[in-house]
């Protein structure tokens, strides 16, 4: 092999590429490295692009990887070549005419995966056969068909993907599927859940979003439980809404179904990161059993009619208020052509007087202004204090207990739907259509427990037993 390609030195930079060339080795060569520290024997692995350029990575026969610094290496002699190539064992997904049909859309996050044990690279499992190979329980739940729509990370999901996803969900419903599952990265899952709640209306079947907080290549992963419960909810569940299906507690117990407009990711890494805010979750789901917690959900229907309104105006932003905010921020947004601003205000929905003139100018230019809360829980109440009343007069519209992210998605959608009708947008914004605003907050819609107090200790000791 005289021709070398960049794959042969994958991830390596100078000075190592020259050194590897000088000794006639490439990635996947089996080598004995003679160094100032002693001899090491192993397989040359690709180098992570983000690591320094100074070390050669070897996999030892024990399975361990080590790095050897270039200036300690005296000689590399090649005695073999073993290229890693991993394929997921596919098993045909068993079809059972007695079971519901479920469509699983992939957006890019890994739902199930297998690990390339040499490089650590995660190879996503997605086809029904691959999924069956890794989560065989799915075959006991439904007949699963999959479609990969795009391959983007959660943080790169955007309008382009939302529109396609909404249309494809509509198609799947009209094609007669009994439920839809959307695999999604968790970081922006609640954003997508919110926008789908507006774009896909009156669905006759469940639309269930699912992901994992611990990747599925780990024995402790939450992925399989999430996927099984999501598939079960889509196939058999009675709730025909856009929902997020993720861990309830951090223990492997049950999943919660959260309404798409009321759910939020609340912890960077906990399994039980998704919470319903200002209300209680729709249901608990566990091993083929779904227990509704709320009664006012939209029930599953036999027809396959659905309204898809896939529109999105990208000129909308969230303005997170902070003390001493200056008016020029808002002026700049208006100047840049933003057509809608969701303010996340303090307390009951307040901003300081300094920005009043800018808000007034924005409203005069036809920019839609809405008030939500950075407290996340509670209602915007602009009549209580004078500040609030003043802000109302500037043309800022309160959005009750709509979450800022849900409000952002709703305004983007509404402006897309009625680009030339500000009043229609305003009406739409202030009319709840998917539970994004609720008339009342139940007493247990706000529960952020404090650790350390005796009753919490009792509770935490009993959560699973």
């Amino acid at each position, binding site marked *: 092999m005289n021709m070398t390609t960049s794959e042969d030195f994958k991830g390596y930079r100078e000075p190592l590429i020259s050194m590897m060339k000088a000794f006639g080795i490439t990635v996947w060569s089996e080598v004995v490295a003679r*160094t100032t*520290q*002693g*001899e*090491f*024997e192993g397989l040359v692995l690709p180098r992570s692009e*983000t*690591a*320094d350029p*100074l*070390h050669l*990575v070897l996999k*030892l*026969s*024990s*399975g*361990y*990887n*080590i*790095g*050897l*610094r270039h200036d*300690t290496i005296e000689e590399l002699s090649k005695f073999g070549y073993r290229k890693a190539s*991993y394929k*997921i*064992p596919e098993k045909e997904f068993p079809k059972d005419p007695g079971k519901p049909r479920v469509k699983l859309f992939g957006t890019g996050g890994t739902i199930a995966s*297998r*690990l*390339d*044990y040499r*490089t*650590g690279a*995660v190879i996503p*499992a997605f086809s029904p056969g691959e999924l069956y190979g*890794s989560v*065989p329980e799915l075959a*006991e739940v439904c007949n699963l068909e999959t479609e990969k729509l795009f391959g983007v990370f959660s943080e790169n999901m955007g309008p382009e993907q939302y529109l396609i996803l909404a249309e494809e969900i509509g198609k799947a419903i009209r094609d007669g599927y009994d439920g839809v599952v959307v695999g999604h990265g968790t970081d922006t899952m609640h954003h997508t859940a919110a926008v789908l709640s507006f774009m896909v209306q009156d669905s006759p079947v469940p639309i269930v979003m699912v992901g994992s907080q*611990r990747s*599925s*290549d*780990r*024995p*402790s*992963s939450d992925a*399989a439980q999430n996927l099984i419960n999501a598939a079960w909810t889509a196939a058999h569940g009675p709730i025909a809404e856009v929902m997020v299906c993720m861990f309830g507690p*951090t*223990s*492997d*117990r049950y999943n919660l179904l959260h309404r798409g407009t009321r759910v939020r990711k609340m*912890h960077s*890494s*906990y*399994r039980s990161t998704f919470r319903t805010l200002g209300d209680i979750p729709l249901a608990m789901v566990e091993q083929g059993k779904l227990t509704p917690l709320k009664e006012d959900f939209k029930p599953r229907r036999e027809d396959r009619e659905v309204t898809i309104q896939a529109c999105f105006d990208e000129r909308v932003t969230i303005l997170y208020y902070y003390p001493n905010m200056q008016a020029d921020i808002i002026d700049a947004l208006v100047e840049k052509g933003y057509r809608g601003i969701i303010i996340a205000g303090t307390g009951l929905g307040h901003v300081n007087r300094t920005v009043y003139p800018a808000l007034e100018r924005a409203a005069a230019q036809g920019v839609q202004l809405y008030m939500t809360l950075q407290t996340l829980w509670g209602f915007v109440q602009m009549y209580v204090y004078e500040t609030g009343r003043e802000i109302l007069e500037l043309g800022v519209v309160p959005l009750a207990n709509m979450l800022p992210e849900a409000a952002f998605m709703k305004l983007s959608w509404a402006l897309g739907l009625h680009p030339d009708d500000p009043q229609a947008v305003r009406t739409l914004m202030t009319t709840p259509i998917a539970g994004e605003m609720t008339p009342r907050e139940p007493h247990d819609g706000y529960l952020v427990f404090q*650790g*350390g107090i005796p009753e919490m*200790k009792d509770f*935490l*000791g009993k*959560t*699973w037993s």
Partner: protein
Amino acid sequence: MNNHENQPLAAPRAPADHNPRLDTPLDFPDRDFGELTPDDYDVLGFMSGLEVHQQLLTTSKLFCRCPAGQKASRVDAEVLRHMRPTLSELGEYDGTALMEFKTHKEIVYRLDRNTVCTYEIDDTPPFLIDLEAVKIAIEACRLMNVKLVSELHVMRKQYLDGSIPTGFQRTAMVAVKGELPFRTSELGADQTLRVRQVSLEEDSCREVSDIGHRITYQPDRLGIPLIETVTEPDLLTPLDVQAGGRLLAQAVRATGKVRRGAGAARQDVNVSIAGGRRVEIKGVGNHRRLPQLVHIEAYRQLNLLRIKAELERRGVTPELFEIPDAGRHRTPPWVQTPLVIDARRILRRSNYPPVREALEQKQMVCAVRLPGFRHILAHRTQPGITFAREIRGRVRVIACLESRPFMIHSDVEDYGLAASVWRQLRAALRTDSSDAIVVLWGSEVDAGTAAREVLARAAESLIGIPAETRQSYPDGTTGFERILPGPDRMYPDTDTPPLPIEDQWIAEIDSRLPETPWAREDRLQALGLDVVATRRLAASPWATLFDEIVAEDREALGVAGLQRVAAALEKRLPYFWRQAGTRSLPAPRVLTPIVQAMARGELHPDGLEPAIDFALRHTEAESTEYLAGRLKSEPVEKELESLLQLAAENLVGVHTREAQAVLRWGMGQVMPALSGRIDPCDVRSKLIFKLGLAI
């Protein structure tokens, strides 16, 4: 003599799971431990290696900032998890078993907020690796003279038993390949023990209980940094395993920056014989137990290989035990294969209490046919343990059967079931005279798993030694612990960046490297101390203290004086520790004056031990005063004279006239005040004369 030519010369490419020799001496006589010579073990192809896990003395844990070494004292919360085998490591091993393991085991962690954070319960990704631990590990590697890598790569080593909530242990290779001088080998003082590798890893949870389908862990220990030191299988006799264990324990402690006490150092031993494969015995606490343990394991392997040979002679093949479509683990085996039957009808009138009870509780009772296994189940594999128990141990772990007993078999027909019932079972299972039957009971799911596992283990009899880890019992026998994970269980940790080892760290560590026990031994022997005492001293925790307190007076003390100091420390320190419940060493300046006084001839050598003992229990000032009292300038003879006079006067009050008793009394009167300043023999003869004793 020793089969060195049969051992691989360099580290083999793949982990050496199989013994390099295939010539199992099947006819080798059965002998107890102590009855075999090194040559006998050579015939057996006995090989053993050790893995020592030593916790490091750091402030925090390895991947989070929780305190290391703090014990849980309360339960603030409990978390429940399951482990799910990920895909590719299933390949070579019994995937079904791992699947069952997952399906049936609930894993509970008890959290004490003072000892764990969200990292331990796998709800937060790892923080950067603790540099204090990395530097101690490097120091240990420098002392053991193994070859350092230049960049640490954190790997994940999979464990599905729940002992680590992530399902894997984070571990990094620090160094490979080195040699320790193995002077205590029974094969000669020129032996060496090769170290294969040293890795730095996080400790796992402590198991609290394992009952049925629930295993409970205490994660306070989880995440404490430890070094794992692995040797090559260079230990060729059971006594060498013990000696090697001691050597390795010293080696990994040589930095002094390690944790001591229960659980801080744990060792695993692996054993194989010709034709066998490496079996790992976990958590052997005491070096003294090692020889018996590995001897029994060697014979267990021999017996399993005898069973294999016998089964092969009978024409039994692994295919006979296969269940068609075994992947469908939810279909009960009694539906899938004629090898298993639902035996509830046949046993419905059984008087055997465990079976009757199972039936009353509506449990499943099934029977498994093992083709060609007649009398094999009763074959002895360990002292007092039959092959049936080998199967039973594994079934209990994997199927989580709770009742005791949960299985009987046809090799003991006169027990449990009536002969007529066995006949009915034989008929229903269509056995012939060479088959054995195993009857199992438990919940329907568990009994199904158990039946599958019995067949799987029976099939593995034809492999010989299954790849498994075993736990040791106090009597030297072992029991199944878990199936050995596959070689692919190691993969890179994508949550942590590689860590280059800086030259400056190494230079700094090298500049203050403590002396190794073997170097110290050489140095002390050069002083003229005897071999055995030197070895003990060099390996002792007070070796450095010894060096410090004799430093100034080595010449004056001479060999005899040095021996006395060494012996005094060896006697008084452990005694004091036991009484005081500590393991703290006194400051050298406390003991140095005592040693100096002896070196100058001011303190009689007999006074050394009492003075050291006093110093250990009192303040420095009190000790100084005590020593001054022992070194009175007044001629000792004069004081002795007055004490003898006093004793003679007090003699009238003594009740006995028996000469020896009187002498003992007299010594008690005189000696305490003179201790350390005079030879007791002198006192004795003077007392005899003074008191006019007939001795």
